[in-house]
């Protein structure tokens, strides 16, 4: 029950933060920081993949409806939720994951987090920018946007965990 409440609050906070703050700031050079992939990463490890795809879809549609992108964020978020179990199983540690564990910066190895989350962000951003621009001759611009945005998003997501996630795993 507490876990459900925690993730609902997070859902709302990530939605509003992405739509009202991070979709509005301009850093130049086509950088578009996106932090809501962190919400999908922080969902419980053994969550049903159907449920996590539906939650991701709802989060994406919420962000889309405020920033008028009509399904773009939803598509990228669903892709991420779909790939999440596969990426987790590829990077599984030798003795497996703990049951019901939350994958945050304290419970996991830092290098593990960097690899897994970097990969997830690259896939997500590439998918998002490809759909957003959707032209073959813009491929260099798509790659430039992805290469520049992924580090910014990654740093932001690590900072958010450092600031807001307590060592026990609860959000303050």
């Amino acid at each position, binding site marked *: 029950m507490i876990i459900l409440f925690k993730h609902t609050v997070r859902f709302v906070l990530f939605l509003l933060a992405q739509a009202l703050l991070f979709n509005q700031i301009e850093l130049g050079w086509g950088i578009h920081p996106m932090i809501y992939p962190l919400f999908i990463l922080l969902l419980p490890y053994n969550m049903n*993949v159907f449920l996590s795809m539906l939650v991701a879809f709802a989060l994406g549609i919420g962000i*889309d*409806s405020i*920033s*008028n*992108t009509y*399904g773009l964020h*939803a598509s990228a978020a*669903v892709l991420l939720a779909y790939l999440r179990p596969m990426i987790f199983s590829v990077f599984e540690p030798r003795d497996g994951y703990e049951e019901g564990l939350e994958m945050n910066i304290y419970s996991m190895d830092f290098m593990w987090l960097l690899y897994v989350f970097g990969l997830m962000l690259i896939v997500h951003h590439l998918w998002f920018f490809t759909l957003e621009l959707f032209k073959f001759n813009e491929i260099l611009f798509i790659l430039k946007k992805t290469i520049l945005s992924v580090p910014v998003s990654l740093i932001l997501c690590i900072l958010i965990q450092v600031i807001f996630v307590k060592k026990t795993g609860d959000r303050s």
Partner: protein
Amino acid sequence: MRNLIEFFKRFQVFLVFAALQGVALSTYFTSMSFPRSQYLTSASKVNGEILSWKYEFTKHFNLAYNNTRLQKANIRLRETQPGSFIRLQYGLVKIDDTLYKQQYEYMPATVINSTFDKRNNYFTLNVGSAQGIERDMGVFSDYGIVGVVHNVSEHFSVVKSVLTEAINIDVMMESSEAHGLLKWDGKDARVGSISGISNDMRIKKWDRIVTRGGSGIFPKGIPVGKVSRIGSIEGLPLWDISVLFSEDYRRIQRVYVVRNLLKKEQEKIESLIPVDKEETTR
């Protein structure tokens, strides 16, 4: 049959994934040109409220800039008032005649949400159908055009701004009246481009570009920007013209919505043009 069930069981995760992607992508690719409903846009009631609440905080950021601009616009208008002129010639009387009939009405509005560095940038206005806003009305500011109303709810509306892919506003050079379509390449919020001007027209750098007023969305002569670069397209007899927008879309707050009182009449008479057979078969 059993194989089929087996197949669905095996690929059920992928099928749900594909279904969700289908929903998301079909709304994304159709809404660009035909908005199906207002519920998934920032014009919807809940999102409009959230954005007005956000605007209460962010409106102060560019307040000084926008106030100065309004003041300048006021000065410009005041200078055209009869009170600012000395009468040089007596005996001429202006009569309120029937030669002129009002065609355009303007409504003030405030931009409560906007982006400028995405591929397609939409602005949300704090006026809606209750204030008489309808789809396909033009929006402009003191310094230049802003966009076309895309979606309307009761108290909010979404504007497809100049900074979108398929904006295609018809514009012309102020000096030569050569006209083309305004486009945006998705990179720099200050620079657009014009396509469709034949390269035998003479165009100078820093020529002013204004709206043409052909489709009845904007009145004629609303500023758009200035020519910043002229190039040629290989293999086509057309100029490739870059436009430096006269409006800074990154700080825009106060805009006007255009209502064309004669639009129905124009549409009615234009719908009587017979469809060109060659054009449809091509």
